[in-house]
């Protein structure tokens, strides 16, 4: 560290020198007002909306997010003339070994890649660019000795790769019974797959399927549905982050659907039940969570509940969040009741642990996490300005597993998407404040309360 402090570096700032969250936000909002590539089209939403007497419209925003694993990126390399030992935590051994071989001038078979236990991955250690491995190999080449490269927390947080920032614009109208008749959604954000070896498999007709998953394939019975995508390009390095596209689509879908329920004067749980009659697994998860949470029963004064249901990675999860809003605008999450249908189960405790884990991870993004940029630089560097959930803020979590004989689905990621909308919906229920951008900060709550 002392040696590093002595370095005098002149940086060539490159194309990203002027990148800022505020300029990107303006550009994204501008794009959302123009047609994009069609990801889903059922009937004719724009025509129905054009005729509608009442159109509900909302814009949603989520920021760049860091994985912020407890173990900063690190890698050990012992490079010799015709062989190489690499020791690191990795979710992507094949890709990392191939990258190391390229940089070292060796064949992949000449590289021994030892995977250590890993202090958190959440997708960060599955980087198609193999950045932290390539860094260490390049250092090993230069120093000609075994080397372990460890990133400082600051470097780890400021160098990317991030879950991309997204902006959504939705316009909808209701039928005579208050159910969604037409829904026109535009999604604006970077593609995490473009420029990676996965592009040919996962980007079809210009649409990165991970940008629209959870939205374009919504299960809700909406007769006129149009989902469009604008893929933006800028110099911010992006990557999958626990639950990938669902990490933002669930917040948007489950929040806006809640807004429609309230506009229709209907209970948000009943509204969803009515729209999911053809989807028994979503329905069962939803009903289980609502029942176990005591949805509809009187709550202690000052408390409210919000609900969300979302399918991802083959599993169906519903969550109910019970919250209160303090006199100074402090949002407190008291309890989360989670129901999961993940198909045939092997180890129930692992499922519960992963739901507890995903909920905590998603809650950090719902309440605190934001990576912002100004003048090409990330503004956050450590846990004081990129906070995560701590013991004192952790709600009680109850997990109920829906018995099933279906093929097994995932549990590592699916617990993440529903918590942000469940909390946002609970906040609305308890206070009338609708916050449409994450993280839900006291300032945004105050502004939403003023809007009434």
């Amino acid at each position, binding site marked *: 560290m002392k040696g590093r402090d002595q370095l005098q570096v002149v940086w060539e700032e490159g194309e990203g020198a002027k990148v800022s969250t505020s300029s990107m936000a303006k550009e994204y909002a501008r794009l959302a007002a123009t047609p994009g590539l069609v990801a889903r089209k059922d009937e004719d939403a724009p025509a129905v909306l054009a005729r509608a007497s009442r159109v509900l419209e909302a814009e949603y925003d989520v920021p760049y997010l860091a994985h*912020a*694993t*407890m*173990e*900063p990126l690190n890698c050990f390399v012992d490079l010799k003339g015709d062989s190489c030992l690499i020791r690191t935590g990795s979710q992507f051994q094949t890709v990392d070994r191939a990258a190391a071989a390229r940089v070292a001038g060796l064949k992949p078979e000449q590289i021994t890649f030892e995977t250590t*236990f*890993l*202090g*958190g*991955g*959440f997708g960060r250690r599955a980087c198609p660019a193999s950045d932290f491995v390539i860094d260490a190999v390049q250092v090993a080449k230069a120093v000609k000795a075994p080397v372990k490269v*460890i990133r*400082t*927390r600051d470097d780890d947080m400021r160098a990317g790769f991030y879950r991309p920032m997204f902006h959504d614009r939705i316009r909808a109208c209701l039928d005579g019974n208050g159910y969604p008749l037409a829904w026109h959604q535009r999604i604006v954000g970077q593609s995490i797959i473009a420029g990676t070896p996965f592009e040919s498999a996962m980007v079809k007709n210009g649409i990165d399927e991970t940008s629209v998953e959870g939205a374009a394939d919504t299960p809700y019975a909406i007769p006129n549905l149009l989902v469009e995508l604008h893929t933006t390009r800028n110099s911010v390095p992006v990557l999958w982050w626990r639950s990938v596209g669902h990490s933002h689509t669930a917040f948007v879908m489950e929040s806006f659907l809640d807004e429609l329920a309230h506009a229709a004067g209907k209970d948000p749980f009943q509204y969803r039940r009515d729209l999911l009659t053809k989807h028994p697994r979503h329905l069962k998860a939803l009903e289980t969570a609502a029942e176990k949470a005591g949805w509809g029963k009187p709550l202690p004064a000052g408390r409210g509940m919000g609900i969300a249901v979302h399918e991802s990675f083959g599993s169906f999860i519903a969550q109910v969040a019970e919250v209160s809003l303090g006199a100074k605008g402090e949002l407190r999450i008291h309890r989360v009741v989670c129901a999961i249908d993940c198909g045939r189960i092997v180890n129930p*405790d692992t499922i519960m*642990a992963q739901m*507890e*884990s*995903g*909920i*905590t*991870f998603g809650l950090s993004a719902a309440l605190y996490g934001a990576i912002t940029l100004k003048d090409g630089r990330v503004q956050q560097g*450590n*846990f*004081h300005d990129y906070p*995560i*959930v*701590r*013991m*004192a803020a*952790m709600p*009680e*979590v109850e997990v109920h597993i829906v018995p099933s004989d279906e093929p097994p689905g995932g549990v590592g990621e699916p617990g993440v998407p529903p918590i942000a909308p469940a909390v946002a919906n609970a906040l609305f229920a308890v206070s009338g404040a609708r916050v449409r951008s994450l993280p839900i900060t006291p300032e945004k709550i105050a502004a939403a309360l003023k809007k009434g």
Partner: protein
Amino acid sequence: MIVLHVNGKERRVDVTPDTPLLWVLREKLGLTGSKFGCGEGLCGACTVHVDGVAQRSCVTTVGEVRGKKVVTIEGIPESHPVKKAWLAQDVSQCGYCQPGQIMGAVALLKKKPRPTDADIDTAMSGNLCRCGTYGRIRRAIHAAAGKGGKKS
């Protein structure tokens, strides 16, 4: 040469007094149970005991702990009620923060043998866990305190 007392033994290390204790423990003494998470005392992964008090070793210099008793995760016996409770509750996921969590819990229980949930909030909120094991940590602390995991 600096003389330290670590896990009941006298250890001599040839470092400058301003060297962070965490790096001395890991690189000079081979005690790699204490982890580097943030380098600024913000995450708790480096927590050790100095004279029985939980302290962040990444922002503690070796000079500061001369003549004091340092205990690391390696110095907590496997039979300790906290370690046993951790296993019984299946607390750990990735495990990276857990040595620091255990050190925090052991120090808390020394001070408050029957901590309330508020005590746990205060004592443990400096130990971050990205895997979300907080609920199980809380249950394990109550179990180790002899409450059988019941909330106070």
